[in-house]
C-alpha cells in the first residue's frame, strides 16, 4: 500500500473484476460501490475471448477492506475474481506532442505486439489505448499513441513498418488529432 495521503478528503481505489461473463455483473458491482458512497471515475470493460474484464477507479471514503467485503458476493460462485487496490490521485499529464492511431494486422504469429510496440517505446512514444484481437488467423492491433514533441514521425512510422514487414504483417500510422468543431 502507498503511504497515507492527506490532501483530498476521498481516496481513489482501482477495482478489477475478471472472469466468466454473465448478465448483471456490472449492475451488481456498481450497485455495491454506490452503496458505499463511492463515485465511479474512469472505467473500462470489454470481453476478452468471452471473459468479462472490467477495470474502474472509484473515489470515496471507504477503505479497501470495506470495498473488498462489499464486492465479495460477486465471487461467491467462484467464476469471478475481484481485486481492490488504493492508487494515488494524479492529475493527467497534458502531453505536448502529437497523437496517432497505429493499426497492425496480418497472419497470426508470436511476437507481433512486442515487436511493433517496441518501436513505439524506442521513440519515446506512449500508448494510451490498446486493443488486440485474434479472429481466426487474423491478428489485429489498434493503439492510440502519443509521440513526444519533436519526434521524427516519418522515421517512427518507417521503423514500425519495417518491424511489421519482418513479421509479415502490415502497419499503418495515421494522425489522431481531433477536428475542433
Amino acid at each position, binding site marked *: 500500500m502507498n503511504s497515507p495521503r492527506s490532501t483530498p478528503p476521498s481516496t481513489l481505489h482501482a477495482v478489477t473484476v475478471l472472469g466468466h461473463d454473465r448478465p448483471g455483473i456490472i449492475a451488481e458491482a456498481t450497485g455495491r460501490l454506490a452503496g458505499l458512497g463511492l463515485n465511479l471515475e474512469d472505467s473500462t470493460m470489454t470481453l476478452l475471448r468471452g471473459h468479462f474484464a472490467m477495470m474502474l477507479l472509484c473515489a470515496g471514503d471507504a477503505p479497501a477492506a470495506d470495498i473488498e467485503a462489499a464486492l465479495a458476493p460477486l465471487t461467491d460462485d467462484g467464476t469471478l475474481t475481484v481485486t481492490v487496490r488504493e492508487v494515488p490521485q494524479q492529475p493527467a499529464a*497534458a502531453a*505536448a*506532442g502529437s497523437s496517432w492511431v497505429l493499426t497492425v494486422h496480418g497472419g497470426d504469429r508470436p511476437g507481433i505486439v512486442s515487436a511493433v510496440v517496441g518501436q513505439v517505446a524506442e521513440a519515446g512514444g506512449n500508448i*494510451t*489505448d490498446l486493443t488486440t484481437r485474434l479472429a481466426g488467423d487474423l491478428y489485429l492491433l489498434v493503439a*492510440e499513441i502519443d509521440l513526444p514533441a519533436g519526434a521524427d514521425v516519418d522515421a517512427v512510422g518507417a521503423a514500425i513498418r519495417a518491424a511489421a514487414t519482418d513479421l509479415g504483417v502490415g502497419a499503418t500510422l495515421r494522425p*489522431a488529432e*481531433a*477536428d*475542433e468543431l
Partner: protein
Amino acid sequence: MSDPSDQQGQQGGQQPGTGGVHERVLAWSETDLGVEGRVLEVVRAPAAVLSTVGERVDPTSPETVQLAADLVATMRVSPGCVGLAAPQVGVGAQVFCVDVSAHPKTRDHHGTFVLCNAEVVAGSRNEKAREGCMSVPDLTGDVKRASRIVVRGQLPGTGEEVELHANAFEARCLQHEIDHCQGLLFVDRVAGAHAIFARQTYL
C-alpha cells in the same frame, strides 16, 4: 476520412449533395448584420443549455441579429474554432455560425455564415472522424456523419430562406452545429463505447 469518396466528390459536381456552392450564402458576411458582435463566454458541459432543444427564432428580430453577430465575434477570437452554436454561449436558440474556409479538410465551402432554424434535409456517404468541441474540452470522440448534406435554414437579418449543399468538412461542421441547436453534443453520437478519448493536447 475515406479517400475513395473524396475522389468521387471531386468528379461528381452534379451528384446529390454536391450541387454547387450557394452564391447568396457565399456572398454573405457578418458585416451584412450591421451590428457589432460582442465576444461571449463559451459554456461547457454539463451546462443544461447544451442539452436542451433550442427555441426557433425570428431571423429578422434585433435579438437574433445581435446573437448572430456575437456568435461570429466569439468564433473569431477562439483559436481553431470553425463553428459556434447559440447554446454554446448560453442561449437556447436555433442559431449558429460556421467558417471552415481555412481548414485543411475543407473541400467546398461558403465562407462565414450564420443560419437560423436550420435542419438537415438530406445526407449521404457517412464517414467517421474524430471531433472535439469547445464545450466538451477534455474529450474527443469518433463520430460518423454524412459527408454530403443538404441544409435548409434562414439567414439572420433578411430572413431569406436558403437551401445549400455542403460536403466534406463543412458538412461535418454544419451537422455538429445543428446538433448543438437540438441539444445534442458529439458525445451523444459517438461511434461506440471505446470511441471516446481523453484529450491529449490542448489548443
